[in-house]
């Protein structure tokens, strides 16, 4: 008799173990993630409807006043324009160039691994360092870019003064750091394209460029869409590059290159108005969500292959 009771006790323990363990394993993640990830994001909405100073803390409930204030501030619209402009200048050329590089890497190269590693070198340089280096390369007075332009007879560009020029300089930082990374993602999906598709295209008389456009690109479209979505989410939050483009860090004397996240930071930590800064955070959050959902819907429509749910997330979270 004692042996059987012991057995059932064990069985009961074992059953309890099976039932409870999975929850114990996922619990640390969910507790921590909700606490430091989701909760702050949602609580931003609560802060945004109050007077809330960096030093004085929470004040009166003000309804949508902070939002009205943001919409009435011309610098918000300037920041939104700058963000979209820098984003377009960085994502479009980047994806195109990454496609070309991936196409080049998708060959029987000698020293395959070495080539792949080589294109990834810029990814190792932190955005802060990239911003400092490019801030110098695009110097108005002694910069290398202007020196090179001078050799071909072009007048020096005022990279830190003119709006579009500053956007080009900042976008080139993003392009430089991420093109190789995206090329590798695209390469991975290119390698999954069945080789006999190329053979039959070649039999039909398609040259290499034609094969690339008519076989490769349609086949990797889901990954391509995925790359665009993730670069959207990251690109619209861009902060480090514009912040460190000059030594003042506010995005230029007329906010020529102030992005929305930089605007948010200035409101919160320079003007010390966390309430209004929170309103900006939520507006940007809504903007990004809408953009990502739109992409997702389009992506679902276009892709029939299995979903490529991530990839850029690896190193992308913050910039």
């Amino acid at each position, binding site marked *: 008799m004692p042996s059987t009771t012991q057995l059932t006790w064990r069985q009961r323990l074992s059953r309890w173990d099976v039932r409870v363990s999975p929850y114990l394993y996922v619990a640390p993640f969910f507790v921590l993630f909700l606490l430091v990830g989701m909760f702050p994001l949602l609580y931003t909405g609560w802060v945004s409807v109050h007077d809330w100073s960096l030093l004085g803390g929470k004040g009166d409930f003000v309804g949508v006043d902070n939002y009205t204030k943001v919409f009435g501030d011309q610098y918000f619209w300037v920041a939104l324009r700058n963000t979209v402009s820098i984003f377009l200048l960085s994502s479009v050329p980047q994806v195109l160039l990454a496609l070309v590089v991936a196409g080049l890497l998708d060959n029987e190269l000698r020293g395959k691994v070495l080539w792949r590693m080589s294109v990834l070198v810029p990814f190792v340089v932190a955005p802060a360092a990239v911003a400092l280096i490019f801030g110098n390369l695009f110097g108005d007075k002694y910069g290398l870019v202007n020196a090179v332009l001078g050799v071909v007879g072009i007048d020096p560009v005022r990279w830190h003064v003119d709006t579009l020029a500053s956007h080009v300089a900042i976008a080139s930082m993003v392009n430089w750091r991420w093109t190789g990374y995206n090329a590798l993602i695209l390469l991975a999906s290119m390698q999954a394209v069945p080789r006999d598709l190329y053979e039959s295209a070649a039999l039909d008389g398609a040259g290499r460029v034609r094969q690339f456009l008519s076989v490769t690109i349609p086949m990797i479209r889901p990954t391509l869409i995925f790359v665009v979505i993730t670069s959207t989410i990251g690109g619209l939050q861009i902060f480090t590059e514009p912040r460190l483009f000059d030594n003042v860090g506010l995005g230029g004397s007329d906010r020529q290159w102030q992005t929305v996240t930089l605007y948010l930071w200035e409101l919160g930590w320079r003007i010390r108005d966390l309430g209004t800064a929170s309103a900006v955070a939520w507006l940007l959050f809504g903007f990004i969500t809408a953009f990502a959902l739109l992409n997702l819907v389009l992506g679902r429509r276009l892709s029939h292959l299995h979903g490529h749910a*991530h990839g850029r997330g690896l190193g992308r979270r913050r910039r």
Partner: protein
Amino acid sequence: MTRRPGFLVYGLLTAFVLGSAMPLWWSFVIGSHTKEIVNRDTPPLVPGGHFLSNAARVFDTVDFWKALSNSLIVSTVCAASVVFFCTLAGYAFAKLRFRGSTPLMVFVVATLAVPTQLGVIPLFILMADLGWTGTLAAVIVPTLVTAFGVFFMRQYLVDAIPDELIEAARVDGCSMIRVFWNVAVPAARPAAAILGLFTFMTVWTDFFWPMIALPASNPTVQIALQQLQSGYYVDYALVLCGAVLSTIPLLVLFVLTGRQLVAGIMQGAVKG
């Protein structure tokens, strides 16, 4: 594609790689000259002999040792924590059956795209209330786990562990945690290494949150870099020498583990 590449392919790739290396090389060129030479009308094109003296100035200007050790601590702790907790959760999602697992996993995937960075303001208020602002804890705690890590480990472990192996271990009388420890952990090692590597790099290169949470007296490497540039007059020989110095640790890591990094990025792209 035709599988035999010609000179054109190698030529174009070489051009791209040189373009990729150029800014880093340029940083070294400027960082190895005196500031007088840097500010001439024609910029120097080859390195000078002042890199070490500039490096010494970097260490004099900001507390670079402290910055390096802070970055090392923060990145290591976050990488270890992400690997541990995300392997644990990823394993549960990949191999264990429990009520609610599907909706919970959908939640994880959905949050992959959520820009949690936009929660900085409450995060800052929270850290201030806890009295953690200014300490490394403020930088470490927000990155103890990542949704991506759970997703990544789940994707890997689904195929990496045969169900029979888990059942066999159970039949042999292993408790659940022993199965995790003796079956899942060994199988997870390759993916865990990649996840750890990426987390380390992401935390090392992060700027936004450390800039908000840490004071000038307790910087990470990226914050120290910013301090080098923050004066009224920018001494680029100093600043770019610092940029090179800050990159050296990751370059070393890259030389040692670049192969895994490449594999991780490419795996991440296909396995999703």
